[in-house]
C-alpha cells in the first residue's frame, strides 16, 4: 500500500517542474499569441544554469535555493534578449514566422549549451539539508520530493495573486483578450509583452532548475519537455493556469503509476489519456472554447489561382531541365536533386494542408517518417517487393494520419498545431523505444529498390515522376471540389457549417491525404538512402518541412520546391561545421527577420508584376478584414 502512496507523492513531485514550464508557455501565448517553441530550451537552460550556480554559490541551504532563483533570473534575461531582438519584430507577422524564429532559437541554444556545458549528461547537485530520505509507512522517499510537491501549489498561488490582485495582472488578463484595446487605454503594449515573456521564461527556467536534484541536466531535455508541455496545455485548457496544474499532476501520476503497471507503455498511456480527455472535453479540462481571435493565422489570406500562361511556360522549362539533367551533371548532383525532389513533395504536402486548409501541423514528419518506416518494415519483415512497398507506404502513413487526425481536427488553430506535435513526438518515441521491431536508434538498414531501379539514373527518373506527379496531384486536388470545400472551411467556419459542409470531415480527409503524400515522399527517401532512423519522424524534421515552406514562401505552389532546394543547399553547406546548428539557427532567424515573405514569395513579389505569374490578378491586395475595418 505504502508503495502506491510513495509513488503517488513522487508523481506529484515531478508534476511541479512540468507545471512551472507549461504555465509559462500558456501565459506567454495568452498575451503575445506566440507559441514559444524555445520554451523547452529555456527549461533546459534553467537546469544548466542551476547546475553552474549551485556549484558557484550553492553552499548551504539558502545558497542552493538562491542559486535556483538566479538560474530562473538568468533564463529570464535570455528571454528578454530573445523578445527584444527577435519576437518584438514579429508580433505582427504571420504565426508561421514566429514559430520558425523560435525554432531557430532552439537550435542556437542547443549548440550554445553544448559549447558551454559539454555533451555529457550532468548529474544534478543535491539540495543541502534535503538530501536524506523519509520513510512513509516503511517505504523510502527522497526528502527533496516533498519540497518539490510544495513548490507547485506555491507557484500556483503566487500566480493567482499576481493575476487577480495586481493591476499588472489585470492588464495581462485584459491583453489576453484584446491587446489593441489595452493599448488604446494608455498601456504600453511592448512593455507588457516583454514583461510577460520574461515572466514566462523565468517560470520555465525555474522549472528546469528545481528538477535538477531529481533529473539532472542534459541536451535532450528541450524536445522532451516541449511535447509534454504541449500535452499539459492542451489537456488543461489553454490559458487556464489551474488547468495546467491539474493536467501536469494527472500526467505525472500517470507516468509514475504507468511505470509500475506497464513499464514500456507510459507513452501509450499518455496518448490514451489525452485522447479520452479531448473526446470528452475538446477544450481541455478547464479551457474555454476558442474565440475567433485565437485562430492560428498562417498568413494565407489569398488563394492560389490557376497558373497563368507565363507561369506554365516557366514550369515547363524547369521540367524540361530536370529531364535532361542527367546529361548535364554527374551522379553526385543527381543524388542531390533526388533529395530535393523528395523534400519538395514532403514540403508540398504540408503546404497544401497549411495554405488550402489553414491547418498548421507541427508534426508532419510523423507521416514522412511513417511512410519511410512503413516501407522499411514491410521490406524487413514481410519481404515485400520494392514496387509494392512504395505503394503501401503512403497507405500506412495515411492510416497513421487518420488515427492522429481523428483527434487533432477536433481542435483548431494553435491547439491543433500543438496536438499534432505532441502526437508526432509520441510516434517518434514509439519508433525510438520499440527496438525489438524498429531497431531503435540503430535504425533499419538495407532497404534498397529492386535491381531494375537501383541505378542512380533510373532511380532519379523514378523519383522525378513520383515527386512531380505527386505535386501535380496535390495541385489538382486544390482546384477540385474537395479543395474548394477545404478552402471554404479555412475562410469561414461559420459559413461553411451553414451551407452543410462537414468541417471536421473535410479537414480529416485533407489531413489523411497530406499524410499519405508525405508518406510517399518518405518511402522514396528510404529507398534512395537504403536506411531509415527515428530522426526522420522527429520534431526537428517536422520543422525542416515548415522551414522549407517558409523559405519558399507561402503563396505559391512552386514555393515548396524552391524551399526544398534552398534548404538542401543550406543544410549541406552548414553540416560541415562543428556548430552547424548554431549557424543554421542564426540563418533561420536572420531569414525570418529579413524576408518575411519567404524567398520565393519575395522573388515573386518583385518579379511577379512583370512576368504575369498568375492567371489573373486577384485584386486581393486588400483583404477581407481590411475592407471590413475600413
Amino acid at each position, binding site marked *: 500500500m505504502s508503495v502506491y502512496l510513495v509513488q503517488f507523492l513522487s508523481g506529484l513531485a515531478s508534476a511541479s517542474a512540468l507545471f512551472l514550464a507549461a504555465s509559462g508557455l500558456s501565459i506567454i501565448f495568452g498575451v503575445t499569441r506566440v507559441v514559444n517553441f524555445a520554451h523547452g530550451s529555456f527549461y533546459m537552460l534553467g537546469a544548466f544554469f542551476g547546475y553552474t550556480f549551485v556549484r558557484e554559490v550553492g553552499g548551504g541551504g539558502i545558497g542552493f535555493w538562491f542559486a535556483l532563483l538566479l538560474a530562473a533570473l538568468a533564463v529570464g534575461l535570455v528571454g528578454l534578449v530573445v523578445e527584444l531582438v527577435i519576437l518584438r519584430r514579429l508580433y505582427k507577422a504571420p504565426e508561421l514566422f514566429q514559430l520558425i524564429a523560435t525554432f531557430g532559437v532552439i537550435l542556437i541554444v542547443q549548440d550554445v549549451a553544448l559549447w558551454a556545458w559539454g555533451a555529457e549528461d550532468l548529474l544534478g547537485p543535491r539540495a543541502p539539508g534535503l538530501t536524506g530520505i523519509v520513510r512513509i509507512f516503511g517505504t523510502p522517499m527522497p526528502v527533496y520530493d516533498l519540497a518539490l510537491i510544495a513548490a507547485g501549489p506555491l507557484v500556483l498561488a503566487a500566480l493567482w495573486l499576481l493575476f487577480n490582485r495586481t493591476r499588472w495582472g489585470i492588464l495581462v488578463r485584459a491583453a489576453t483578450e484584446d491587446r489593441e484595446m489595452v493599448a488604446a487605454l494608455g498601456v504600453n503594449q511592448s512593455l507588457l509583452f516583454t514583461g510577460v515573456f520574461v515572466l514566462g521564461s523565468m517560470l520555465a527556467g525555474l522549472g528546469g532548475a528545481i528538477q535538477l536534484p531529481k533529473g539532472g541536466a542534459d541536451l535532450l531535455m528541450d524536445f522532451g519537455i516541449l511535447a509534454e508541455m504541449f500535452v499539459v496545455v492542451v489537456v488543461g485548457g489553454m490559458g487556464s493556469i489551474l488547468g495546467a496544474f491539474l493536467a501536469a499532476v494527472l500526467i505525472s501520476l500517470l507516468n509514475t503509476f504507468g511505470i509500475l503497471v506497464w513499464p514500456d507503455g507510459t507513452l501509450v498511456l499518455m496518448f490514451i489519456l489525452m485522447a479520452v480527455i479531448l473526446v470528452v472535453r475538446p477544450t481541455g479540462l478547464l479551457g474555454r472554447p476558442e474565440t475567433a481571435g485565437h485562430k492560428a493565422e498562417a498568413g494565407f*489570406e*489569398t*488563394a492560389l489561382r*490557376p497558373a497563368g500562361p507565363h507561369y506554365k511556360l516557366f514550369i515547363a522549362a524547369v521540367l524540361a531541365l530536370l529531364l535532361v539533367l542527367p546529361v548535364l551533371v554527374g551522379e553526385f548532383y543527381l543524388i542531390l536533386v533526388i533529395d530535393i525532389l523528395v523534400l519538395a513533395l514532403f514540403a508540398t504536402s504540408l503546404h497544401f494542408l497549411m495554405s488550402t486548409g489553414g491547418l498548421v501541423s507541427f508534426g508532419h514528419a510523423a507521416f514522412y517518417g511513417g511512410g519511410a518506416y512503413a516501407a522499411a518494415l514491410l521490406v524487413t519483415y514481410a519481404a515485400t517487393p520494392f514496387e509494392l512497398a512504395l505503394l503501401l507506404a503512403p497507405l500506412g502513413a495515411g492510416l497513421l494520419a487518420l488515427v492522429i487526425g481523428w483527434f487533432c481536427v477536433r481542435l483548431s488553430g494553435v491547439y491543433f498545431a500543438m496536438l499534432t506535435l505532441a502526437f508526432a513526438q509520441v510516434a517518434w518515441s514509439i519508433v525510438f523505444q520499440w527496438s525489438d521491431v524498429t531497431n531503435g536508434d540503430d535504425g533499419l538498414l538495407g532497404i534498397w529498390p529492386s535491381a531494375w531501379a537501383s541505378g542512380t539514373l533510373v532511380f532519379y527518373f523514378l523519383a522525378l515522376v513520383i515527386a512531380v506527379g505527386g505535386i501535380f496531384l496535390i495541385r*489538382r*486536388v486544390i*482546384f*477540385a*471540389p*474537395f*479543395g*474548394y*470545400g477545404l*478552402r*471554404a472551411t*479555412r*475562410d*469561414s467556419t*461559420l*459559413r*461553411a*457549417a*451553414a*451551407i*452543410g*459542409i*462537414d468541417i471536421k470531415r*473535410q479537414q480529416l*480527409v485533407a489531413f489523411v*491525404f497530406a499524410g499519405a503524400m508525405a508518406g510517399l515522399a518518405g518511402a522514396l527517401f528510404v529507398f534512395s538512402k537504403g536506411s531509415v532512423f527515428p530522426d526522420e519522424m522527429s520534431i526537428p524534421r517536422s520543422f525542416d518541412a515548415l522551414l522549407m515552406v517558409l523559405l519558399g514562401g507561402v503563396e505559391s505552389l512552386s514555393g515548396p520546391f524552391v524551399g526544398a532546394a534552398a534548404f538542401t543547399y543550406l543544410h549541406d553547406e552548414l553540416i560541415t561545421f562543428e556548430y552547424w546548428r548554431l549557424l543554421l539557427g542564426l540563418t533561420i532567424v536572420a531569414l525570418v527577420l529579413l524576408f518575411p515573405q519567404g524567398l520565393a514569395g519575395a522573388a515573386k513579389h518583385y518579379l511577379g508584376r512583370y512576368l504575369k505569374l498568375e492567371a489573373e490578378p*486577384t*485584386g*486581393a491586395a*486588400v*483583404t*477581407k478584414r481590411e*475592407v*471590413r475595418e475600413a
Partner: protein
Amino acid sequence: MSEAAVKPNPAAPSLAVRHLSKAFGGVQAVRDVSFDLGKGELLALIGPNGAGKSTCFNMLNGQIRADSGSVSLAGTELIGRSPADIWRRGVGRTFQITATFPSMTVAENVAMVLMSQRHELFSFLKTAVQRHRKKALELLDLVGMTGQADRPCGVLSYGDLKRVELAVALGNEPSVLLMDEPTAGMAPRERIELMGLAARLVRDLGLSVLFTEHDMDIVFGHADRIIVLSRGELIAEGTAEQIRSNPLVLKTYLGEGQIYGRKEG
C-alpha cells in the same frame, strides 16, 4: 407591404417551435419559448441585446442544442440534428456579420453551396473551376450581383456582401430562411432596398422568414407579425400596431420612441 403576392398563412406553420429552453452555466438564456412561423410569413423577432435572440436562432439551425423543447419543420423534429442536416432539410440562414469565403469570387461563393448541396465535396479529381457557373449566375441575377460575379468576395462593399449572402442562402432552395439582423450596418436607403429585395424574393419563392432586426422602421415596415423576447422569455406577440402600444415592450425595448419612426427615407 404592397408586394404581398402570397398571403401568409399562420394556420399551416412552416416551423412550429414549442417550449424551447436553453441555459448556459446556470444562466437561463432562453426559457420556454413557443411560436409558429406561418408559411409565407415574414416574422420579426425583436428584443434587447442579450435577450436570447441569437441563442434561439442557433437552436433553430442546430448550432446549439436545446436543453428541452421541440422545433418541428413540416412534421420533422429538428432538435438533435446537426446544422448540416437541418440545412439540407431546407432551413437556410444569413448572419448578422457577413460570413462569406473571402478568397473566392462571388460566383464561386455561390457555386460552393451548389457543390455542397450536390454532395460533390469529396470529389478529388474533377475541377471546381467554373463549376455550376450558370446556376450560380442565375442566383446572383436574383439579387442583382451578376455584374460583380468574378470579383473576390474579400473586396466587396458591405451592402453587396449582404446580397451575396442572400444568393448563397437561396442556393439550397430553402423553405425557411433565418435572417440575423439582415440590414445591420447599412445606410437607411440600402436597408430599405435590401429588405425590399428580400421581402420580394421571399414572396415570389414562397419562403417563410424569421428575422431579427434593431431598425424598427424595417421591422414595422416589413414584418407580417412580430414576437418580442426579453431576458429569454417571449413577452409579446402581435402586429406592428399591437407591439408599438404594448407597455411592457415599450419599457424593455422600444423606449420612448425617440429614435425610430423617422419621416424621411
